[in-house]
């Protein structure tokens, strides 16, 4: 916290975001429910366990190929519930609206929220609106929170990865961030890539049906695959070995990455998950995932090992090795 001011890097999901959370926020709120920092908090109420989560959405531009801020606000929160194995019971939605925003714009966002909620079979059950002066917000910001019920016998947490577990991803990574980058039009990029923004609770339900003892689920949003694997490796005290050739990345995403000097492992996703499962259950689970519309391109991308706890190792295309650490802040395009 040397630079005592908020910079954009604090929001990028890398080491600096981690530092902000741990050094600034957590000391004020520390408690045993918050401490594990899974995608949702898990609250026990008698025999049942509730999942509770919240997230704010500030994307620019408000809409992009494959989604918009409204769809993100529903899917992001539903997915955070799903990552602890919870079925969503209801969502809240709060809107911060900028003075001057066209009602038509809000209607578009609400309509895509309704569509995403329908897809996720969840309802918005409470909400709020506030209006701020022109210039004090960029169009609109949305906060959603969600509660969900964790079925009996399900215990999915970031600290449960075990040596031997296989790592599965449900499809190609990086689509969301590249779609938003292209939609921003900043780098004269053109492309047809669409955001993967989608609710994953249906897929997770099918997965838990096929394999009750999934150890870990995480959605690689900000900070990408690299950040979530690093968190899991640290929370579980294990090493994750990733096979570069098995990680699905679309050709177009790879091309944009080559152009900008980006590493696809750090790109945000909004409809992807990684699952850590006992080796003997992986084949059956993969079959179930491939049969689901959200998991058609699923594949095994790596394995958990006991040595070098807290590290993520990437085995490269040519058979070499390198570490995959979380980024410090944002990825910036290189010079040439």
């Amino acid at each position, binding site marked *: 916290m040397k630079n005592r001011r908020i910079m954009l890097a604090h929001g990028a999901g890398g080491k600096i975001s981690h530092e902000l959370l741990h050094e600034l926020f957590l000391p004020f709120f520390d408690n045993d429910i918050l401490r594990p920092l899974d995608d949702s908090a898990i609250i026990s109420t008698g025999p049942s366990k509730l999942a509770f989560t919240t997230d704010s959405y500030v994307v620019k531009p408000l809409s992009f190929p494959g989604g918009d801020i409204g769809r993100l606000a529903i899917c992001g929160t539903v997915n955070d519930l799903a990552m602890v194995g919870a079925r969503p019971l209801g969502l809240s939605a709060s809107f911060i609206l900028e003075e001057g925003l066209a009602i038509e714009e809000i209607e578009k966002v609400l309509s895509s929220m309704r569509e995403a909620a329908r897809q996720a079979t969840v309802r918005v059950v409470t909400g709020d609106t506030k209006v701020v002066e022109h210039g004090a917000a960029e169009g609109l910001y949305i906060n959603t929170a969600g509660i969900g019920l964790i079925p009996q016998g399900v215990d999915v947490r970031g600290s449960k990865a075990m040596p031997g577990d296989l790592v599965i991803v449900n499809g*190609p990574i990086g689509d969301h961030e590249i779609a938003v980058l292209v939609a921003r039009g900043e780098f004269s990029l053109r492309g047809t890539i669409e955001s993967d923004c989608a609710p994953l609770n249906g897929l997770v339900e099918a997965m838990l049906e096929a394999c009750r003892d999934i150890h870990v689920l995480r959605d690689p949003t900000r900070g990408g695959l690299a950040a979530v694997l690093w968190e899991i490796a640290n929370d579980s005290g294990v090493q994750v070995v990733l096979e570069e050739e098995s990680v699905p990345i679309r050709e177009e995403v790879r091309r944009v990455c080559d152009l900008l*000097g980006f590493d696809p492992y750090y790109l945000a996703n909004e409809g992807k998950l990684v699952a850590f499962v006992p080796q003997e259950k992986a084949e059956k689970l993969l079959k179930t995932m491939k049969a689901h519309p959200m998991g058609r391109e699923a594949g095994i991308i790596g394995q958990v090992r006991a040595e070098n706890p807290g*590290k993520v190792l*990437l085995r490269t295309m040519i058979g070499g*090795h390198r570490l995959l650490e979380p980024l410090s802040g944002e990825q910036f*395009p*290189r010079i040439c």
Partner: protein
Amino acid sequence: MKQLKKPNEEKIASVLLKKISKLTDGPLRFMEVCGTHTISIFRSGIRSLLPKGIELISGPGCPVCVTPVGEIDQAIAILRLDDVILATFGDLMRVPGSSSSFHQEKAMGSDIRVILSPLDAVEIAQRESDRPVIFFAVGFETTSPAIAAAVKESSRKGLANFYLLSSQKLIPPAMKALLSAGKVKINGFILPGHVSVIIGKAPYEFIARDFNLPGVITGFEALDILEGIYMLLHRHKEGKAEIDIQYRRAVKEAGNQRAMEIMEEVFEPVDARWRGLGIIPASGLALRESFARMDASTAFDIPYEDKADPPGCLCGEILQGFNVPPDCPLFGTKCTPENPVGPCMVSTEGSCAAYYKYGGAQ
């Protein structure tokens, strides 16, 4: 989904590695001059595969890393003037000046636009014609033709609000300075691919002629680099110092004439300070007289002031291949990507950043 893996990449690599092992007959040090090579070497894990006798060391070819503190400070001083827009490549955002960085200035409300192409800066100037737009132009021969094109385009459009703060540098003079100092011990160069697309092969001939060292102009894929290393070993074995081209699919011996002409038309070589390396004769590019109006340092009357590099920082020694990042007492302790002291820790292509990020597994 399309299969992304190139056919038998791992197989080809293992064949090349076998050949490399066969030719490696003692400790050899090769310098990859270009930062893009440094990153590719780390990302593909090449070091973890090479025989023990081969050491790869990074050279001065990271444009951000060699930008001196004084130039960052100068850009920040201009940026703090009223209503100014600074356009810059993203890599420079977090590079520390003596008391601030673009990143911090942006957090305080300065208007900084990250661009990918120099022409984007001209477009910003056209769109926001009532505000001065300063393009902080950093880069090597790879980027300079595009910067020259942007200068000409702005002149053609008659944009009175477009300015250039040039911190461009040239690779061959820096290599000459490095070798002439006689301090660095290397057995050959992995020469930059992109720079050579522009300048061709001739500007490197002095390396073989005057310093009796081989060099291979190499592409950026992992297999290119392995082949480049193999070609260097081959020359070493023959005892022949030659400049060869591995990256034939992009580099012509004569380079790109048109690109060199436009550079020549817009810029003239000047002595320039390189961070850590000091002043190198005719190693920078400044606007020629006919475009002098656009020179931000005179237009805003904020001249460049020479500043010392931060104390303790070994960036200079690392950029010249005397030291590797872990030798620096600040590395990983006082200097991290979160709180960088030297630019080598923040640039995507910086060797300290690469060692810090990927180092443990190599």
